[in-house]
């Protein structure tokens, strides 16, 4: 039957999309290889100005993601199950090493490319769940790659790139969110070990991670010459069979496929050689990666916004009420058009910030403050644009927007994440007020 179909369709001049895809569906059995997506490639975002490498990343990551349809993410979201095979698929094709040095088995690309990757993931429909499944492996490994000892790098990085180990980031605490310098989890030196006690919260992927990049206090707040010199960074094993480590999943609004946790340390012992850089330098090292994370999150927000807007526009074109597509009504069309402009503007801000971040490594005329203002602005703008796009996508769908089957409710629940994390909108406004406008610090 296939071969008859095969020989017939070639005779028709108009076979391309439908028949080629139909054949692919019949033929493809091995999930290892590509599954040509059956959705039309109608991408809203204008990609003019992206570099060849960025476009190559977008195309290739998009192909990997196309094997994980929206039904996959709906299902995992409802069952609260980790997207292990999605993480494994990205790892197998080398994507987790995108911004790690080539000497360690990475690909040595910049944050400009990593941001494209994160955006492509959320935009594919995977949403924040897809992004968070890999985010820490891309981002939290940056300070390690830069400040870790040769031994630490050799032992850890290849395992993370290959996907054998997953990592999580342990900074946030219940009583020290944005006020990182006040964090209270302690690491006390005892011979060849440190003893960790305290609590971390909102640790993404804690349940599935075998490594943690941990920020802990090695000097009491009062005893340190400066508050910023009292913290140290560690790359530790999360060994649940050892005493002193336990964690609890947090029930949450969105991105339910990916776990977020409270992690409790009570005399958990780690070898002293897990210290990254020098004791007391932890805060400085962590700060180093923060602007990069802002860029990545801005990209993730953008992808979510474009995914929702793409879906809303499609629905508005197809849904007929009162004998006309609802998109013909300006009350429906204008909010979506407005969202498009905001997303495009946020896109420019995001990739501008990412470019600055990468360029600042070799161009000393670009100060960290300039990068900081750009990266924070991008995160703020992208998160707000995504939020508005997701909300309007739900509204454009009317009642169907409330149904899980249409995906927009899932993205809407998830789009609060980039508004809240890794830094709140209010703290960004504070920062920009202080750094860009020269206003007095308010806190």
């Amino acid at each position: 039957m296939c071969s008859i179909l095969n020989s017939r369709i070639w005779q028709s001049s108009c076979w391309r999309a439908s028949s080629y895809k139909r054949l692919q569906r019949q033929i493809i059995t091995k999930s290892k290889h590509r599954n040509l997506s059956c959705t039309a490639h109608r991408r809203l975002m204008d990609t003019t100005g992206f570099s060849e490498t960025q476009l190559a990343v977008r195309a290739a990551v998009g192909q990997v993601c196309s094997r994980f349809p929206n039904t996959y993410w709906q299902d995992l979201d409802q069952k609260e199950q980790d997207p292990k095979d999605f993480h494994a698929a990205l790892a197998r094709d080398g994507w987790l090493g995108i911004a790690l040095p080539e000497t360690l088995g990475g690909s040595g690309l910049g944050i400009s490319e990593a941001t494209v990757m994160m955006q492509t993931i959320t935009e594919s429909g995977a949403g924040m769940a897809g992004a968070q499944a890999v985010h820490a492996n891309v981002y939290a490994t940056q300070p390690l790659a830069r400040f870790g000892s040769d031994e630490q790098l050799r032992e850890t990085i290849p395992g993370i790139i290959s996907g054998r180990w997953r990592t999580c980031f342990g900074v946030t605490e219940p009583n020290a969110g944005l006020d990182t310098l006040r964090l209270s989890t302690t690491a006390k030196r005892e011979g060849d070990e440190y003893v960790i006690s305290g609590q971390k919260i909102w640790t993404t992927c804690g349940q599935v991670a075998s490594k943690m990049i941990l920020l802990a206090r090695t000097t009491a707040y009062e005893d340190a010459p400066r508050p910023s010199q009292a913290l140290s960074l560690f790359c530790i094993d999360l060994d649940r069979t050892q005493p002193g480590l336990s964690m609890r999943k947090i029930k949450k609004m969105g991105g339910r496929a990916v776990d977020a946790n409270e992690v409790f340390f009570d005399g958990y012992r780690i070898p002293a050689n897990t210290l990254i850089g020098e004791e007391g330098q932890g805060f400085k090292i962590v700060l180093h990666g923060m602007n990069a994370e802002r860029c990545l999150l801005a990209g993730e927000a953008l992808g979510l916004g474009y995914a929702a807007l793409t879906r809303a526009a499609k629905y508005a074109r197809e849904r007929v009420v009162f004998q006309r597509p609802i998109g013909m009504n300006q009350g429906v069309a204008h909010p979506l058009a407005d969202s498009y402009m905001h997303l495009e503007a946020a896109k420019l801000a995001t990739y501008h910030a990412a470019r600055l971040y990468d360029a600042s490594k070799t161009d000393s005329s670009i100060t960290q403050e300039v990068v900081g203002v750009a990266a924070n602005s991008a995160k703020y703008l992208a998160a707000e644009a995504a939020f508005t796009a997701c909300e309007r996508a739900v509204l454009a769908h009317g009642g169907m927007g409330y149904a899980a089957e249409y995906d927009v409710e899932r993205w809407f629940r998830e789009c609060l994440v980039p508004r809240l994390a890794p830094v709140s909108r209010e703290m960004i406004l504070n920062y920009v007020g202080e750094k860009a406008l020269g206003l007095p610090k308010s806190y």
Partner: protein
Amino acid sequence: MSALRILVPVKRVIDYAVKPRVNKAQTGVETAGVKHSMNPFDDLSVEESVRIREKKRAPGGVEDICAFSAGPPKAQEILRTAMAMGADRGIHVEIKDGEELEPLTVAKLLKKSVEEQKSNLVILGKQSIDDDAGQTGQMLAGLLNWPQATQASKIEFGENDSVTVTKEIDGGVETVRAKLPMVITTDLRLNTPRYATLPNIMKAKKKKLDKKTLEDYGLTNDKRLKVLKVTEPPQRQGGGKVEDVDGLIGKLKELGAL
């Protein structure tokens, strides 16, 4: 057995998932701002060449896999894709944006390239999904006076340079055998192409890509065909419903179909 020197011609076409639109002047389809990618059948050719090497299927081994494309400057992107999938190097014959080559010109170009590269196997897609001409492979075999096996769904290598190819034909398969050098065209069931992995995309950036022109091969873009007009297929008319089988037969008779 001789070591294989495989030439893999690839073409940049409008992505298979995009619905092409006829341009306003009705001289062709709109290509500006439209997603392009490698012709899907050429994807299969690249994949097969790489698999022949990886699975050590050819007794003499694979010495070289050279991807070849004639097209606009952006055709380089698909050569990079081919190299990211595993081709060793690329040759780009640059054609001005908007210009098209007819199959015979492509076949002549490939013949020159085969001679220059000392290729002994050419694996190419059985057609490209833009003009669906389906002629290049056959013309190339004719010009080279080499054996050809079209619409391959399986390629096997034997002793003394023999190659056995299973071909898809109406209602079944046909198995043919020939000796190198030869031309093979690929069909959909041959394999499932891989994704380019990130490390391989990075490696491909460093692989050699030679730039050439038609003049380098002593050729000009001669046209034997003139496109008079390109139009959309006619809009489909809505169907009608009949009550029962008798109604259907009556209707078919009325329309002269029975």
